[in-house]
């Protein structure tokens, strides 16, 4: 299992080298979104309207942080469960999103989209929001402030730690890992 340092925006070449189980450290800009924001984004896509940010080569992090204390860029900020975004994710991968970050398993449709559009699904440690917040340098709301914790944020991250759960070759770390440790 390899270790990679990647800087956003991501390219096809970045994605091609990633395999399940690889450790990746991300530096640069990432965008956040949860259920409510995804619903709005997909409504815009279906109405052929422009999105609030350029999605080409970008990463979406499924997170709804706690409010930042004064002087801090962000509060606790770990991943939320990804399957709730499964019905929306293929639309965004189709437009050029190269990676999503969350926790938990993805649907077959999402895994197909990863193959089709050369993209990955990355896992961050669920329930380690305080630790993860240390890798987020800046955070600002760029769309839907009325959604509170569910607003879309633009974050600057440095060496943000994730593991490749699903790669563009159909690999699935959850299935492989479970097989390895399953006892009848």
């Amino acid at each position: 299992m390899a270790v990679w340092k990647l800087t956003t925006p991501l390219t096809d070449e970045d994605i091609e080298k990633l395999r399940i189980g690889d450790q990746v450290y991300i530096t640069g800009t990432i965008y956040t979104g949860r259920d409510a924001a995804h619903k709005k984004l997909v409504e815009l896509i279906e109405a052929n309207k422009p999105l609030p940010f350029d999605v080409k080569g970008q990463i979406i992090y499924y997170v709804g942080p706690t409010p930042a204390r004064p002087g801090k860029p962000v509060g606790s900020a770990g991943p939320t469960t990804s399957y709730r975004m499964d019905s929306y994710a293929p639309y965004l991968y189709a437009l050029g999103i190269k990676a999503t970050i969350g926790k938990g398993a993805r649907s077959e449709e999402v895994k197909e989209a990863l193959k089709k559009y050369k993209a990955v699904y990355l896992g961050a440690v669920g329930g380690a929001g305080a630790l993860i917040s240390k890798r987020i340098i800046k955070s600002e709301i760029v769309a839907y402030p009325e959604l509170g914790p569910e607003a879309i944020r633009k974050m600057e991250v440095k060496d943000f730690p994730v593991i490749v759960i699903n790669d563009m070759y159909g690999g699935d770390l959850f299935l492989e890992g479970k097989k390895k440790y399953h006892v009848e």
Partner: protein
Amino acid sequence: MKVISLKDVKENVKNVVQKANFELNEDVINVIKESMEKEESPEGKAVFDQLLENAEIARKEKLGLCQDTGLAVFFVELGEEIQFKKEDGLESLSQAINEGVREGYKEGYLRKSVVEDPLRRKNTGDNTPAFIHWELVPGDKFKVTFMAKGGGAENMSAIRMLAPAAGQKGIEDFVVETVDSAGPNPCPPIIVGVGIGGNFETSALLAKKALLRRPLGSHHSDPFYADMEKRLLERINKLGIGPQGIGGRITALAVHIEVFPCHIASLPVAVNIQCHSHRLLTFEL
């Protein structure tokens, strides 16, 4: 007659909702450490390491252990002989608890995770209403247990009305199936609360109550159910899901069971899944 001021209730609630979200209890940390020893997967061990480091940071910086600071769930043991004193505009006990939640979640920079309607989904903005379960008890005891219950683990919970003939095996299979199909979603390592018996609604409440038992990982006082807890934990940890679902020996930290009498035709079972971020705190007045 014991008199308790509603203002005291509010202040205590305000404190526990914050402390519980910042400081992981010692018994939970101990079970995490013990389980880490048993974890065979190096990647799994690394996850445990991060959980312990996370707990350190959260405690020192008064930062949410998890960004999902939960629905505010309360179990109240309310002595029948207590009188409550209205103060500071607080007119009722439930108002005092809700006010404590409102102020505590604001003061502690905790996330507001409640929508006011299940389908129209507008955030209430202050994490109220609190989810309060009352239990009337004789005497003048007033004991309040707060649990910050995140959505990820709660969503993987399940309930089933089994036929009595399904018996012990039916119960155990259902529990293991529920954990298996939850897979990586509820942030394993998890804690499994099982409610057996009662009727439809009480079995779910029993499952949640099972999560309140302390210290974490201690067993039911009835050896029959203590054995079932041990057997279930063993079966669950053979699944291979592992920390965060990436494969490993430890999928669950503990299984707690609570039981209750039930109808001759019924065998209800409920499974309430809780994550490693087991935020629980009690106060008494």
